[in-house]
């Protein structure tokens, strides 16, 4: 890695690939006029499975598309040539991967709310899907836990437990359960399962005695050495190392891919987390990011300096869409739909999307239903995130970030919507929404930002590649992120508070770049948009009425500067928490009014009720 850093300034061209479960995406970045820019993108089906069973085939196909689009040559002797020589190849090649279902883990800890929860955060932050959390106090019988470990066949187990100097008995008990389960890994019949122990230092020998012979055991620093502090990084690095050494090496073709790149292949979500952290740090802001895919939805947050990531393994827009319906329930989906749909019709539509996941909405009605589903998938994923992105439990108000936001109790969520500066969305339903305002509106309804929040979407989902690039060349990653990856939608103004419909909520006055002034006065239950282009800024005076708080306190005026975007400045005076009308006709009327106010869908939607 040092070698790469030393030569960072000489790097003229970078190819980065992301091997997803279905598609492998390649991007080409070049240094032009002193700055790094995205040049083209190519893609090809991932080739982990039969008949190819070699991931490099898909990588080469995706890069071949980049060659077609640029007229350059990057492949020589069926390899990506690097560093670039004689006009052939690239200076740097990097990759991320989530092929084969990503990294599937189980974690174990002594107390569910303490070490087990810390272990869960460590695994999620390393880019894993956590299949189950085993804890000494999880109310299950030992044999039930053993059967669970056996049935799930994880790729890896993270065992934590005990602060240093604390319990060793419970840790030994957990180790005995894992040994008794004698778990077989998901991939490969004959290799032994990787287990990482990141718990009480005093229990290391006990764990070794129990697990060394039956598993491939490695030991890292305790992830919760004292109650007041987590130390997740060593465990996360341990997980990523084992991911490469064990899991990836058993995936077809990865041995070759590992040889092509000078830096380790990262799990896709870990790479996305890394770029999010970089942005938050560089700009000194709090960020929430979401990637809604076909099968899973990942949520990332950086508040203060605390990074959290969660993955909702069964919330997604195609493979998992039926589960969104099951978890959200029909009434919650239909509350976002401004026309009549029969429950049986909705159910059959959703199941047909599940079994034919690549289809796209042709009719406007289908698009509106799909975006209603997305709102619920995002909302549920965010609820799960808020439950895990919490302060350390069992601690008395001792976190250093408590000056950033109020912690009323130990274990309170770190996600404070009023303190959120930027909300970034990615994934097909957001990035490819026919109108950008649709993406903005879906994110507002699902995440309910409060105060002033900048909204953005990832143009073509290149955050994974930029995340791995950020490890070795942060400057290039940031330049491309700002110029080519992030599409700014604008700023949302959403005061907290509740008011009766029709009573005054807030006044907004914007001094536009051309010197004119745009003023809006909104009543409770209304929405409005003021166009303000990408890159433009407007001086704003925001005056909420006495029941509402736009960030400075109830009724307090705010003078600030707002950034524009492809949508502009969205004013949401519906109140927080948002209450939708329970009467169907009234709800349809309000949804139609908001859609019309923001220009969300083409034509007059009220006619669709007929």
């Amino acid at each position: 890695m040092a070698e790469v850093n030393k030569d960072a300034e000489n790097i003229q061209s970078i190819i980065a690939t992301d091997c997803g479960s279905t598609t492998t995406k390649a991007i080409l970045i070049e240094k032009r006029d002193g700055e790094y820019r995205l040049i083209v993108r190519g893609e090809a089906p991932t080739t982990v499975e039969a008949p190819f069973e070699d991931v490099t085939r898909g990588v080469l196909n995706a890069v071949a598309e980049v060659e077609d689009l640029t007229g350059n040559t990057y492949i020589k002797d069926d390899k990506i040539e690097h560093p670039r020589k004689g006009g052939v190849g690239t200076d740097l090649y990097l990759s991320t991967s989530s092929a084969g279902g990503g990294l599937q883990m189980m974690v174990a800890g002594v107390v569910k709310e303490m070490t087990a929860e810390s272990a869960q955060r460590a695994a999620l932050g390393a880019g894993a899907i956590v299949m189950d959390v085993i804890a000494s106090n999880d109310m299950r019988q030992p044999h039930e836990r053993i059967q669970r470990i056996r049935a799930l066949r994880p790729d890896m187990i993270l065992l934590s437990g005990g602060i240093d100097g604390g319990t060793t008995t419970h840790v030994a008990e957990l180790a005995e359960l894992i040994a008794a389960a004698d778990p077989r890994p998901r991939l490969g019949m004959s290799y032994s399962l990787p287990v990482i122990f990141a718990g009480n230092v005093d229990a290391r020998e006990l764990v070794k005695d129990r697990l060394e012979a039956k598993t491939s055991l490695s030991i890292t620093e305790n992830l919760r050495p004292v109650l007041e502090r987590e130390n997740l990084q060593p465990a996360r690095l341990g997980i990523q190392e084992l991911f490469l050494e064990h899991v990836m090496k058993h995936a077809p073709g990865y041995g070759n891919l590992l040889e092509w790149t000078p830096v380790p292949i990262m799990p896709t979500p870990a790479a996305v987390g890394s770029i999010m952290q970089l942005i938050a740090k560089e700009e000194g802001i709090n960020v929430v990011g979401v990637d809604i895919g076909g099968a899973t939805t990942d949520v990332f947050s950086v508040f203060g300096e605390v990074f959290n990531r969660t993955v909702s393994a069964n919330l997604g827009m195609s493979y998992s869409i039926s589960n969104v319906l099951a978890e959200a329930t029909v009434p919650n989906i239909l509350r976002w739909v401004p026309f009549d749909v029969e429950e049986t019709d909705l159910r059959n539509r959703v199941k047909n999307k599940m079994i034919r996941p690549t289809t796209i909405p042709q009719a406007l009605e289908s698009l509106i239903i799909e975006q209603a589903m997305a709102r619920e998938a995002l909302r549920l994923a965010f609820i799960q995130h808020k439950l895990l992105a919490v302060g350390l439990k069992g601690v008395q108000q001792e976190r250093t970030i408590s000056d950033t936001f109020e912690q009323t109790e130990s274990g309170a969520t770190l996600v404070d919507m009023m303190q959120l500066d930027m909300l970034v969305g990615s994934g097909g339903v957001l990035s490819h929404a026919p109108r950008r305002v649709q993406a903005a509106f879906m994110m507002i309804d699902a995440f309910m930002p409060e105060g002033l929040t900048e909204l953005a979407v990832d143009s073509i989902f290149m955050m994974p590649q930029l995340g791995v690039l950020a490890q070795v060349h942060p400057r290039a990653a940031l330049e491309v992120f700002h110029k080519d990856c992030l599409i700014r939608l604008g700023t949302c103004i959403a005061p907290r508070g509740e008011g009766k419909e029709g009573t005054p909520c807030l006044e907004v006055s914007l001094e536009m770049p051309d010197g004119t002034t745009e003023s809006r006065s909104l009543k409770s239950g209304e929405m409005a948009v003021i166009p303000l282009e990408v890159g433009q800024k407007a001086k704003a005076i925001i005056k909420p009425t006495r029941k509402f708080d736009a960030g400075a306190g109830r009724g307090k005026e705010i003078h600030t500067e707002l950034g524009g975007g492809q949508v502009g400045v969205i004013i949401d005076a519906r109140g927080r928490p948002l209450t939708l009308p329970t009467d169907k006709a009234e709800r349809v009327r309000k949804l139609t009014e908001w859609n019309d106010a923001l220009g969300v869908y083409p034509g007059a939607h009220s006619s669709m009720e007929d």
Partner: protein
Amino acid sequence: MTHAYTPGLKVSPQTEVRKERRLPLKGDVLVSVGDWVTAETVVAKTELPGNVQTVNVANRLSILPEDIERNMLVKLGDWVNEGDLIAQSRSFFGLFKSSAKMPVSGTVESVSDITGQVIVREKAIPVEINAYLDGEVIEVFENEGVMVKTTATFVQGIFGIGGEAVGELDVVAKDGSVVMDPSLINSSHKGKIILGGSLVTMAALERAKEVGVRGIIVGGIGDSDLRTILGYDLGVAITGSEEIGLSIVVTEGFGQMTIADRTFDLLASRKGMKTSISGATQIRAGVIRPEVVIPLETGLVGNADHEIKHKAVVGLVIGSPVRVIREPYFGKIGTVTSLPPELQKLESEAMVRVLGVKFDGDVEVMIPRANVELIEE
């Protein structure tokens, strides 16, 4: 480049079908290369390690964990029957004895002087796998399983539930549009696989289970009925292990959907033949679709290899028969009339690649390429 259309499901009158039959753990393969097997032949078997139970002996005896060893009455590796004593504490004068018994019959696997727990493993669980198809063993994977080959009529469904089932094929609907209701099912269908029409009603499912039908092949199923028969709302399309008393292969989708004529006519022509079906579906990377496999008599076998090669090169071209797989023309079958290369705007305003389709000589309509599937010959 990725294909801009969904590859269709296979509907083949005669093709070579190969099935890997693998054990979940290493074990014994019972057949050899060249053996002719029937669907019911057991081709490999193994034993899964038994379930594990724990006994907190230290707690039961009110002793410290480090004292467990000297109170144990059995050794590591001993087989002990349910109810037998495994440990006993020795109190003063032998007056107050505490004891721990085996909760199940099994082997003593570990005794921990840290936790005070004894772990007991029950008897190994035997697992056998059968051939699933009538055919020939063409490869043996040492200690793991075999590959069985047969020449068969092969139809893939879009979605299914339940595992593998084998039985004689019977046809209960006169064509693919008929709704399968209970009146079409009678006791003569016991042990059979039945081919229905556009929808199987809940009442028909109940009737089929009652008479002992092994499998149903049908065009559509209502999601509400699926929820009723499963007892839960299916979240993700990973199926095959449901125990609902029969297996179901759905060829078209959810709701009432006429089975494509080609599929129906082909299957109907195999009435009376031994048929293997599997409802197992996995719509993720590594997609598994449910299937109907009807091994053909040797006399019917032609040059199957030739047929496969011929089909592999067929793509989406003008004149290709396609089925629309999303609203507003869901389920309609037509012919491709144009393939404009440039992106076009849909009613939903999405800009996508489209194709022109004509249904039964009607006017041409434009449909996203992602929303059709090729009907594979």
